[in-house]
């Protein structure tokens, strides 16, 4: 899903670059609140984790495979601002050191995957968390729904960009249907993996999951005495 050079015209690429720079600037301010002076090493290691997670391919069907985008996953695990930074840095490293994703499309890729992916993912997750009962078991399903919706949302924004600055004379409606349809399938895989990963971290180290903190705060310490039934 990395957009290559030449897919969108130059003005659109520059405009999304400006949007991406503004979004990353906001995230830089916010990440200090989430992690204080730990930001650089923690975000660096989480970015490396997201990169490693993206290396794991899962079969989507029809012989193709998708890989984790990780926007919703990172947002739930480390918080939205740090997640935007992590995904942006992953895309920067992939563009500069791995030739994956065009350099002029870097702004587009950051806007789609880091900004839209994380903002939609976190928005859906925060909404569900506010509505659902505060139980640790519900963090992972909420993250799954967030992942499921964030991927087609990024695809829909891509289609909008394509309608504005696309270089291919294809009917926008057809692109929208194909992109969103295809990404619902990818989003389903993303949702399953996100749910399982968040579930496994919540089970072992719930204190590490940023999205689970309000749930943990609502927990009461329970002291049970042996032989005494409550």
């Amino acid at each position, binding site marked *: 899903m990395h957009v290559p050079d030449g897919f969108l015209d130059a003005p659109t690429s520059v405009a999304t670059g400006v949007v991406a720079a503004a979004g990353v600037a906001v995230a830089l301010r916010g990440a200090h609140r989430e992690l204080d002076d730990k930001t650089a090493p923690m975000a*660096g290691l989480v970015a490396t984790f997201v990169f490693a997670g993206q290396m794991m391919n899962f079969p989507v069907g029809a012989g193709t495979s998708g890989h984790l985008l990780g926007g919703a996953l990172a947002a739930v695990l480390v918080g939205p601002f740090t997640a935007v930074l992590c995904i942006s840095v992953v895309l920067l490293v992939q563009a500069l050191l*791995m030739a994956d994703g065009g350099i002029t499309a870097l702004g587009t890729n950051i806007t789609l995957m880091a900004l839209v992916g994380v903002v939609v993912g976190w928005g859906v997750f925060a909404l569900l968390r506010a509505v659902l009962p505060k139980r640790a078991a519900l963090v992972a399903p909420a993250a799954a729904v967030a992942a499921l919706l964030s991927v087609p949302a990024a695809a829909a924004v891509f289609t909008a960009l394509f309608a504005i600055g696309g*270089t291919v004379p294809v009917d926008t409606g057809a692109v929208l249907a194909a992109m969103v349809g295809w990404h619902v399938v990818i989003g389903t895989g993303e949702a399953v993996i996100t749910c399982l990963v968040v579930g496994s971290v919540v089970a072992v180290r719930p204190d590490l999951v940023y999205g689970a903190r309000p749930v943990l705060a609502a927990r009461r310490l329970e002291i049970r005495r042996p032989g005494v039934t409550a």
Partner: protein
Amino acid sequence: MGAGHGHRLHFHGHSPVHRAPAHLKLLALVAFMLLVVATPRDWYPVFAAHLAVLLSVILVSRVPLRYLLPRMVIEVPFLLFALLVPFVAHGPQVEVLGVEVSEPGLLAAFALVVKGSLGVLASLTLAATTEPDEVLRGLQRLRMPALIVSIMGFMVRYLDVVTGDLARMTTAMRSRGCDPRSPRHWPTLARSLGALFIRSYERGERVHLAMLSRGYDGALPDLRRTP
């Protein structure tokens, strides 16, 4: 395990392109690619000129083409998409090799392939001639926010460590009969990804403590040239 911080694309050399300051190379890459992307799709001689410029840079860098070309497979999924375009695009139809295809679609697909391939080849040239540390120093020189540069620095430093962790975990799973490609084993796969997250996060905490004990005050010292 901590060895080999060079990345997989770097091609060791001492050409003028290798020695050029990284920030100039980064600026040149962005300027070149903006020019390529802004070129109207039917200016064929200009594309030939772009390719000639790029090939002459590669020639000067003395990175063999047979090193760069196999690494262009990264754009294959995108090429498949470009192949589809002439069939789904609208506009007047022309017949090519007995198949009806859209003429503007054909032109657009040509432009996509040319621009995309030029982009991949140019990025590969940068990656092949520039050490990751140099890229970081270049970004620093270009006034990239310090926090982004240091996050990227940590990522470059721990990339091989974390992917090594993942590779060992995958080997361990495979040797116990797990097939990471089968959806039946997704729960196992996801648990190991969860474990990888915890290991990475805890490694980050240990690195932070180690940095504090060496006098870290929130700002990294300048990225010095390592001997």
